[in-house]
C-alpha cells in the first residue's frame, strides 16, 4: 500500500504565507533586527553605559573621532608647550607620525606628554637623523567611531539603541507570552465551561477592562517601583484581557461545530475534546492576534518609558531613547530619529507579518 502524505491545512497556510512577499521580507527583517540587537552591542566597540566626557552630544558620523584636524591640533598644542613646531603630521589607521622641529633641543619627555593626553598612547621617539632639534614621534591614537553620535551624557547612541532594542523586543516577547498564557487558559475555560462560570469570568474581564489602564500601570509602578521584571508583568497583565475575549469567542464558535458534537457522540472525554479538537482550531486567530500583540506591547512599554515610568537608567529601551530625543528636539534631531526609526520599522515589520499570517490562515478567496 503506497504511503500517501496528506496536505494539512497547516501546510496550505505555510505555503500561502511564504508566497506573500511583504510577510517574508518582514520575517527576514525581524530575524536580522533581533540578531543585531542581541549580538550587536558586543561589536560596536562601546559599552552602553560608558560615558565619554569629551564627546558629549556629538553628531553621527562615518568618520572616526577624533578627526584628523583635531588630532593635528592636539599635537600642535603639545608641541608648543615644548617650544617645538609641527613640521609634518601624518595619521593613518590610528598610527600617527609627527615630525617636530625646534630652535632648541626638544625635551625627550615630550613623548610622555603625548601619552598622557586623552586618546594618545604608545608614543615613542623614532630614530631620526636631525635629532635633537628635530624629532620624529610615532604613536597611536585611539579613534572611536560614533556611528549614531552620542547622547546628552556622552554615551554612544548606536550601542544604546541596540541595547534598547534588546529590552523592547524582550519585553515584547515575554509580556506577550504572559498575556498568551493567562488569556488562553482563561478564555478557553470560560468558553468551554459556559454557564455561570463563563458569566463570572467574563464579568471580571469586563471590570478590569473598565479600569483606566494608565492608572492601573501607574499603580503597579507605585507599588513595586521601577522593576524591569514587573514592567513586563504589568504590560502582560493588561493585554491578556483582549486575548481572553478572543479565545472565549473562538471556543464558543468551535463548541457549536458538528465535529465537536460528533466527538461527544463517540464518547470522547472533556480533556481529550479540548486538547484534540478545540485548541488546535483556536490557534489560527490566536497566532494572528499574538503577532499583532507584540507590537502593541512594545508600544506600550515605549509609552510608559516615555512618561518616565519605564526602565531605569542606565539601562535603556527604545521608549526611553525616544523620550530623550523628543526633549532635545531643537538641536539634536538625530537623538530622536535613530531610535524612532528602529522602533517604527520593527513595528511595521510585525504588523505586516501579522497581516500576512491573517491572510494565510483565513484566506478570503475561499
Amino acid at each position, binding site marked *: 500500500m503506497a504511503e500517501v502524505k496528506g496536505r494539512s491545512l497547516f501546510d496550505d497556510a505555510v505555503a500561502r504565507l511564504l508566497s506573500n512577499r511583504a510577510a517574508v521580507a518582514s520575517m527576514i527583517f525581524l530575524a536580522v533586527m533581533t540578531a543585531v540587537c542581541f549580538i550587536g552591542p558586543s561589536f560596536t566597540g562601546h559599552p552602553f553605559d560608558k560615558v565619554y566626557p569629551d564627546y558629549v552630544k556629538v553628531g553621527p558620523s562615518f568618520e572616526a573621532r577624533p578627526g584628523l584636524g583635531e588630532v593635528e591640533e592636539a599635537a600642535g598644542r603639545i608641541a608648543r608647550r615644548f617650544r617645538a613646531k609641527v613640521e609634518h603630521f601624518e595619521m593613518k589607521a590610528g598610527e600617527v607620525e609627527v615630525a617636530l622641529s625646534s630652535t632648541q633641543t626638544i625635551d625627550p619627555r615630550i613623548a610622555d606628554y603625548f601619552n598622557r593626553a586623552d586618546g594618545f598612547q604608545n608614543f615613542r621617539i623614532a630614530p631620526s637623523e636631525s635629532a635633537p632639534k628635530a624629532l620624529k614621534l610615532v604613536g597611536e591614537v585611539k579613534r572611536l567611531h560614533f556611528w549614531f553620535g552620542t547622547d546628552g551624557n556622552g554615551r554612544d547612541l548606536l550601542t544604546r539603541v541596540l541595547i534598547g532594542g534588546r529590552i523592547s523586543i524582550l519585553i515584547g516577547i515575554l509580556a506577550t507570552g504572559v498575556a498568551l498564557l493567562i488569556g488562553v487558559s482563561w478564555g478557553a475555560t470560560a468558553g468551554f465551561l459556559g454557564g455561570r462560570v463563563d458569566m463570572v469570568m467574563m464579568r471580571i474581564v469586563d471590570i478590569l477592562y473598565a479600569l483606566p489602564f494608565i*492608572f492601573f500601570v501607574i499603580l503597579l509602578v*507605585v*507599588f513595586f517601583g521601577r522593576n524591569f521584571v514587573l514592567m513586563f508583568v504589568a504590560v502582560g497583565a493588561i493585554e491578556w484581557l483582549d486575548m481572553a475575549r478572543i479565545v472565549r469567542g473562538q471556543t464558543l464558535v468551535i463548541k457549536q461545530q458538528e465535529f465537536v458534537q460528533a466527538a461527544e457522540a463517540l464518547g470522547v472525554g472533556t480533556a481529550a475534546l479540548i486538547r484534540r479538537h478545540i485548541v488546535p482550531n483556536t490557534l489560527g486567530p490566536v497566532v494572528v492576534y499574538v503577532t499583532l500583540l507584540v507590537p502593541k506591547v512594545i508600544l506600550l512599554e515605549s509609552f510608559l518609558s516615555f512618561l518616565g515610568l519605564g526602565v531605569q537608567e542606565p539601562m535603556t529601551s527604545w521608549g526611553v531613547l*525616544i523620550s530623550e530625543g523628543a526633549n532635545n528636539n531643537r538641536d539634536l*534631531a538625530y537623538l530622536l530619529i535613530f531610535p524612532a526609526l528602529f522602533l517604527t520599522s520593527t513595528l*511595521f515589520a510585525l504588523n505586516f507579518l501579522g497581516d500576512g499570517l491573517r491572510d494565510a490562515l483565513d484566506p478570503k478567496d475561499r
Partner: protein
Amino acid sequence: MISFTLRRLLSALPTIFIVVTVSFFLIRLAPGGPFDGESHIDPRILVNLKRIYQLDQPLWMQYWLFLKNLAHGDMGPSFFFKDFTVAQLFAVSLPVSMQNGAAALALALVCGISLGTVAALRQNHGIDHAVMGVATAGVTIPNFVVGPLLTLIFALGLSWLPAGGWNNGALPNRILPVITLALPQMAVIARLTRASLIEALRANHIRTLRALGLPGRTVTLHALRGALLPVVSYLGPAAANLMTGSVVVERIFGIPGVGRYFVEGALSRDYTLVMGTVILISVFVIFFNLIVDIVYSLLDPRVRME
C-alpha cells in the same frame, strides 16, 4: 428607546461603582502619602493637615465620606494643587481636552471614512495600497514619535507653526496637537471602513441591488450604510479616549488639559485628584458607549428588537 437607555444605564452603574471602589482602596494602599514630597513640615501642622483632609480617619470611614460627598457632586480638594478643588481643576482643563478631542474625532472620522471608502472601491489598485500604507503607518508609529516628528518638520524646520504651548487656544497652536491625536484613530477608522465595505460589497443584498440595475453610486451608498456599523461600534471607546485627553500629546505640546492629572496625581499621591480622574474616565466611557449604542440601534433595526 427610553427603556433601552435606562436599561443600559442601570447595567453600567455597578461597573462604575466597582471601578471607583477598587481605585479608592488601591491608591490609598500604595506606600507614601500626599504630603511626603513636601519639604519638612512641622509635625503639628502635619497633624492638622491630616485632620482637615480627613486622613486621620479609618479607611472605611474615609470611603464612606467620599461616597457621601460624591453624591453631592463634591470631589474634594486637590492635595497637590492646594488652592483648588478637583472640580475646579477639571472645570478649567476638561474643556481644553474635550475641544481637542472633538476636533480630532471629527478629523479622524471624515478622513478615515473617505480614505477607507476610496481604498475599498479601488481594491488592490495603487491607491488602495497607498492608503493602506499610510494607515498602517498611522497605527504603527506611536504618537510620542509622531508629535515630535511633526514639530521637527513643521515648527522647527519649516517654521509654519509654533513648536508648542497652548497660547490660550489660538488656532495655530491647535493644529499639530489635533493632528497628532487624530492620526492613529484616522488610521484605524480607514482600515475598518475598508475591510467592512469590501465585505459589504460582496453581500447578497448588494447583489440584489445590482441585479435590479441600480446605478453604481446608489449601490455603493447602500453598502456603505451597512459597512459603517462596525465603525460606529468602534467610536465609543475611541471617543472616550480622545475626549479625556491624551497624556502623551498634552505633555509633548504643553497643553493644559486633563491628561496630565492622571500621571501627576498618582505619582504625587493626590488621592482626590486621582479619584476624580478615575470617575471622569469611567463616566465618559459609559456615556459614549451609551451614545454609540443608541446611534447603532437607530441605524440597525435588528438591534431594536431587544
